[in-house]
């Protein structure tokens, strides 16, 4: 399988680390000079850019967390003047402010390269037709994959998400060979195809690149058997660059190679912040090495993973991160939407007179994530009129959709029926078994 950027992707570790250190020093010097937030962080920690003499010195630098990005909404974390920003994306802002990220012309170029590498790792090349079902818009998925496909020299169909039946017709007629999208949407698409009497065996896909939400080995098996393709996982956050931070190779499908010439990856203990050795599970932390408009220094992703440095059959020397196994906090990703139990709670509080007992049940039915919100009835809201109880359920569901952008089924349940653990209600039951 051809490697897109063979010089970098197969570089010996020593050479790679030399590049990392040089790029890290440049990045640190630049953010110190241009981003007040980072200067403050360094000053508080008593560090100056000159103190970064080795890659290990990175460990002395304070972490950056999502809240820091929110505090500097919208442009406070940008390291270049607006004149140099050619693109803006934003992550879904479900807990108040979204996170806004910017790209210089060179950042867009870097990103296109990383996505081209990713598509190549999944088996794509010039001559392939890429069906890009990632959403186009503020979300980084669609445009990220799009630019990568063009950089690779493949033909891209910018189909975006939704309009599923039409997508299937396009698959039959345009004969795409590479499929991109979120795994839950793609499984939904497979079902619709089935209803339409379209068998993926008769289509032309070789590989699928699936990401933007965590997915399991079970889902890989399901995707591969239903879609007759090789399914590889792609990882990325808009805060870091978007998709294309790491990718599984088609050869091993076992861990995602992190593009270490552009990002330093660390695994930390989410409690203590201590850096953990290879093989241990902890929170993924990224530092960007080449980003101009929106560099991040030790950005805590809250994704749980571990790093595997053993050489890979594909020839890439980049370390592999295991498929993210979950989140460090209780955030749920439901059909690509970030949902925090606390947000549901505040909707319930607005609808009820006293503090509600509730539980979120997440499942995957017919390949789409489902969210059921169980709410214990109490005498403050109880009525002997069925209609008014149903109206209450519908009102809560409506408000959840309005506030969080996610469809939920609300179910009133009897008091004291929601599981409690040591007196505390169990807030989330995730049956999708990540």
């Amino acid at each position, binding site marked *: 399988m051809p490697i897109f950027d063979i010089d970098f992707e197969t570089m010996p570790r020593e050479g790679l680390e030399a590049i990392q250190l040089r790029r890290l020093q440049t990045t640190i010097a630049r953010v110190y000079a241009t981003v007040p937030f980072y200067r403050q962080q360094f000053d508080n920690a008593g560090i100056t850019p000159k103190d970064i003499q080795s890659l290990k010195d990175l460990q002395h630098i304070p972490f950056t967390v999502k809240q820091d990005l929110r505090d500097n909404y919208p442009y406070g974390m940008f390291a270049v003047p607006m004149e140099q920003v050619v693109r803006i994306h934003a992550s879904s802002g479900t807990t108040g402010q979204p996170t806004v990220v910017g790209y210089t012309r060179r950042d867009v170029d870097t990103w296109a390269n990383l996505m081209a590498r990713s598509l190549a790792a999944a088996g794509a090349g010039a001559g392939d037709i890429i069906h890009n079902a990632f959403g186009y818009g503020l979300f980084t998925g669609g445009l990220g994959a799009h630019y990568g496909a063009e950089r690779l020299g493949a033909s891209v169909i910018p189909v975006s998400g939704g309009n599923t039946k039409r997508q299937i017709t396009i698959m039959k007629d345009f004969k795409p060979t590479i499929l991109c999208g979120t795994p839950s949407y793609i499984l939904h698409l497979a079902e619709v195809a089935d209803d339409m009497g379209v068998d993926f065996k008769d289509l032309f896909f070789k590989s699928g690149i699936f990401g933007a939400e965590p997915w399991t080995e079970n889902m890989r098996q399901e995707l591969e058997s239903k879609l007759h393709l090789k399914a590889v996982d792609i990882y990325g956050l808009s805060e870091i660059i978007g998709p294309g931070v790491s990718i599984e190779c088609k050869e091993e499908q076992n861990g995602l190679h992190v593009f270490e010439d552009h990002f330093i990856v660390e695994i930390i203990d989410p409690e203590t912040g201590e850096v953990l050795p290879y093989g241990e599970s902890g929170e993924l932390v990224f530092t960007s090495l080449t980003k101009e408009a929106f560099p991040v220094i030790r950005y805590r992703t809250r994704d749980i993973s571990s790093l595997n440095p053993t050489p890979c059959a594909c020839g890439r020397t980049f370390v592999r991160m295991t498929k993210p196994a979950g989140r460090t906090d209780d955030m749920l990703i439901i059909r690509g939407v970030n949902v925090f139990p606390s947000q549901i709670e505040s909707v319930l509080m607005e609808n009820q007179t006293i503090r509600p007992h509730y539980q979120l049940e997440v499942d995957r039915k017919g390949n789409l994530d489902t969210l059921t919100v169980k709410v214990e*009835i109490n*005498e403050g809201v*109880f009525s*002997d009129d*069925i209609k008014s*109880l149903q109206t209450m359920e519908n009102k809560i569901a409506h408000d959840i959709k309005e506030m969080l952008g996610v469809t939920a089924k609300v179910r009133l349940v*009897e*008091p004291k*029926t929601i599981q409690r653990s040591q007196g505390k209600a169990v807030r989330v039951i995730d049956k999708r078994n990540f």
Partner: protein
Amino acid sequence: MLAEQISIFIENKEGRLAEVTAILRDADVNIRALSLADTTDFGVLRLIVNDNEKAEQALRKEGFTVGRTKVLAVEVSDEPGGLNKVLDPLWMQNVNVEYMYAFANPQCKNAIMVFRFDDHDKALEILEKHQIKVITTEDISRL
């Protein structure tokens, strides 16, 4: 002049209704009438019992959400058109039935209808004008 009904929230789970009636049996409460309105997920059980106080206590103790609702209980004579005698004057003056259920008066052949109207005061006034006997909670507990 209104009667009181107790209502209970129950989930649509097998055996749940039997549990409620068992609790009432153990508390020595006599159920006069019962109606269940339900959706696919839950239901509201409405009860006319001989002792609201005792019933409510027993059910609360078992963790049920219990409500009390004023309803109008009316004796309907056991003859064709008996129910219309009650409903026609109400309907003609725009008093609407939200729900209703019935039980037999153990002392005679007549039925006792339990109504929830959208306007109880107006309903009472109309029934009085038509000399239709309204049954109170006290009457019910004496049955």
